[in-house]
């Protein structure tokens, strides 16, 4: 029967060996590919994918050539769980093996959860400044902000991936449709005509004075793409004008429609928190008489209106601040030493690798003792 065949395929030990071998090869080629593709693109192409595709340079077709990280990991996980169900019923003498395998399953699931759920962002603060949001270090968003109200603003944040894919964006919170006329994943802008630049066809905002150019995607580790997009706003079948939005443009561009004023901004993706962090002081200590850094530290003030909490914390190398499910690490600083950059890590499954290792260790110990004790007993029996 087909189902039986399927079950014997997924529970076979051969599959385990093949998957592990494929994983070794994948890690090898995926690591080599980072030289040309850069870390993030290679990670996405090899490890965060089900199939690895390949095509000759410049061609617009690609063929699947290798299973991706998700596929290998997923099959391995199914294999492990299925084999367990099929082969190992609960027996006391197999307790160690069961716990070890549970640990392995937890490790695989935990890594998948980390990959899917964890988020790293940056919090850049100048001395004295307070912020209640961190920013992605490479993902961007189009923020359409209704600034009409006095104290608060209503933000509709559209991720760059949506801008890149969709021609037309509608949202219940917006009275107009956003038509993406052009999306440049990496771009340059100029305020004068230059070779390779085309005049921006925007009709409103800063765009009409600018020239734009599509740039090749960045592969370097220490650089990133700076996107720009040409958007047309439309309401009741009528165009309200077209705007150039870009991360290069820092001055807000506004559009007024139906007695509301909206600001358009393409910016780094923001992650708001229910508390704020204020940088009270940043220290960049060096060893006396040298330029060698000794210590970087940020003294911050954590304020949470909901809990009434207001306290200070010192963040320095290897001593992050853990607060509100987030971990704040000292990551970088401004060249003038008047600002600090904290890395903000949100990883709900950060405990799973620890737990998985404990389980594997405990399982192996139990299994070892389960053999050792009867062996010693036999030896001691005269």
């Amino acid at each position, binding site marked *: 029967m087909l*189902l039986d065949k399927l*079950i014997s395929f997924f529970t076979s030990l051969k599959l*385990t060996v093949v998957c592990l071998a494929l994983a070794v090869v994948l890690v090898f080629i995926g690591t080599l590919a980072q030289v040309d593709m850069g870390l993030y693109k290679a990670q996405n192409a090899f490890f965060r994918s089900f199939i690895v595709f390949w095509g000759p340079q410049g061609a617009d077709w690609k063929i699947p050539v290798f299973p991706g990280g*998700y596929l290998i990991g997923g099959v391995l996980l199914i294999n492990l*769980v299925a084999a367990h169900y*099929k*082969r190992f*019923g609960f027996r006391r003498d*197999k307790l160690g093996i069961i716990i070890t*395998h549970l640990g392995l399953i937890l490790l695989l699931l935990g890594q998948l*959860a980390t990959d*899917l759920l964890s*988020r790293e962002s*940056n919090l*850049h603060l*100048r*001395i*004295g*400044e307070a*912020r209640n*949001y961190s920013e992605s*270090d490479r993902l961007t968003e189009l923020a359409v902000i209704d600034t009409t109200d*006095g104290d*608060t*603003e209503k933000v*509709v*944040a*559209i*991720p*760059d991936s*949506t801008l890149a894919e969709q021609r037309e*964006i509608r*949202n219940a919170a917006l009275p107009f449709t956003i038509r993406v006329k052009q999306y440049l994943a*990496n771009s340059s*802008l*100029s*305020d*004068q005509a230059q070779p390779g630049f085309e005049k921006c066809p925007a009709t409103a905002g*800063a765009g009409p*004075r*600018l020239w734009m*150019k599509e*740039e090749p995607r*960045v592969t370097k580790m*220490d*650089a*990133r793409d*700076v996107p720009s997009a040409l958007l047309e706003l439309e309401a009741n079948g009528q165009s309200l004008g077209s705007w150039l939005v*870009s*991360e*290069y*443009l*820092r*001055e807000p561009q506004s559009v007024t429609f139906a007695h509301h004023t909206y600001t358009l901004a393409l910016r*780094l993706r923001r992650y*708001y928190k229910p508390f704020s962090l204020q940088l009270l002081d940043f220290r960049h200590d060096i060893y006396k008489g040298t330029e060698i850094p000794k210590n970087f530290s940020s003294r911050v003030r954590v304020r949470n209106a909901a809990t009434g909490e207001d306290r200070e914390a010192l963040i320095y190398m290897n001593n992050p601040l853990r607060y509100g499910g987030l971990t704040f690490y000292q990551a*970088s600083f*401004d060249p003038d030493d008047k*600002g600090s*950059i904290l890395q903000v890590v949100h990883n709900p499954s950060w405990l799973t690798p620890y737990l998985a290792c404990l389980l594997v260790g405990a399982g192996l110990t139990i299994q070892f003792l389960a053999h050792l004790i009867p062996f010693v007993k036999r030896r001691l029996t005269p």
Partner: protein
Amino acid sequence: MNPLHPTARSWSWPRSATLVALAVVLTSCGRDETKVYRVEKESPAAATVPAAQAAGGGAQGQTEGRPRLTWKLPAGWVEMAPGEMRLASFRIQGPGAKQADVSVIPLPGPAGGDLNNVNRWRGQVGLPAVTQDEFARLGEKVDIGGAEGALYNQAGQNPAAGEKSRILAALLHRDEVTWFFKMTGDDALVAQQKPAFVEFLKSLQFTAAEAPPALPPSHPPIGGAMEPAAGGGPAKPNWTVPAGWKEEPPTQMLIAKFSAAGDGAKAEITVSAFPGDVGGLLANVNRWRQQVGLDAISEADLPKAVNETEVPGGKATVVDLDGTDARTGKKTRLVGVIVPQAAQTWFYKMMGDEAVVAREKDALVKFVQGAK
């Protein structure tokens, strides 16, 4: 995995369904979705430049050749990262959550005229606009880095937030640049900080414009949400300077600057060039009209308001305006020539005492025609 002891357990559908569901849940997490949320308004000073690691070139120009400024930081002021428009930025934290924001912004030319700017600030705190006569009595003399500027103090209620707020703004015209020093925020806090602000203005020192710096590779190049600047712009053409004109050191927005004097009066001649059509002929004619206190004209009136003259390689537009200097309130005359050339537009402007401008008008036109 231990292949021994196969117990041949039966495979049930609920088990596989659980696995599939788990896989679906996990893979559907973390997808990009549009989010809608409400946040408290950010004060302008909080909008600092992120230390993004950006790639690509282009879009230089705004920070190039910017004037430099040094100051003595008053107690309690926090220096913030400068922005695209802001040459310097400070924040003052008052008692409670009260805040004030200080900005220093240089803009080329008269930047809309002092009266309009003051009326704009008055509007921001819910005060009625003032007329030219009232405006002349409004300013308070203030020492800005050794030069005399005017300080305007507007207090009222922010029409949007309904809070008592105050804008303390000092204006200084230095060469072809209008400098805005502005403190905005809570009424009581700004009023209390006024002596510190005045001290700050006094402590300012203007130094020569910075040499165009190469942006560090880690810095995202900046874009043009500002007036186009002439940084890295065209070189000075070959021209014959009319007799009686005195060449003066140009500022960073200008290609050349001259002055012509007579009978204790003076006119200033400036030459600048910007890429593109700089907003078009009408916008530029109206910009000049505004500088001499004249109302803007419409496209239909444009042909009557300007004259054309031949220049090498095409036609130029000559504008001749009589009015009042928006800065000084004195009667003035402005003769301007706009020359579109290749991808650039050149602006030759003579402004000052009526008699001197009348005498030098022909010389100006000849000067423009002779420029190569």
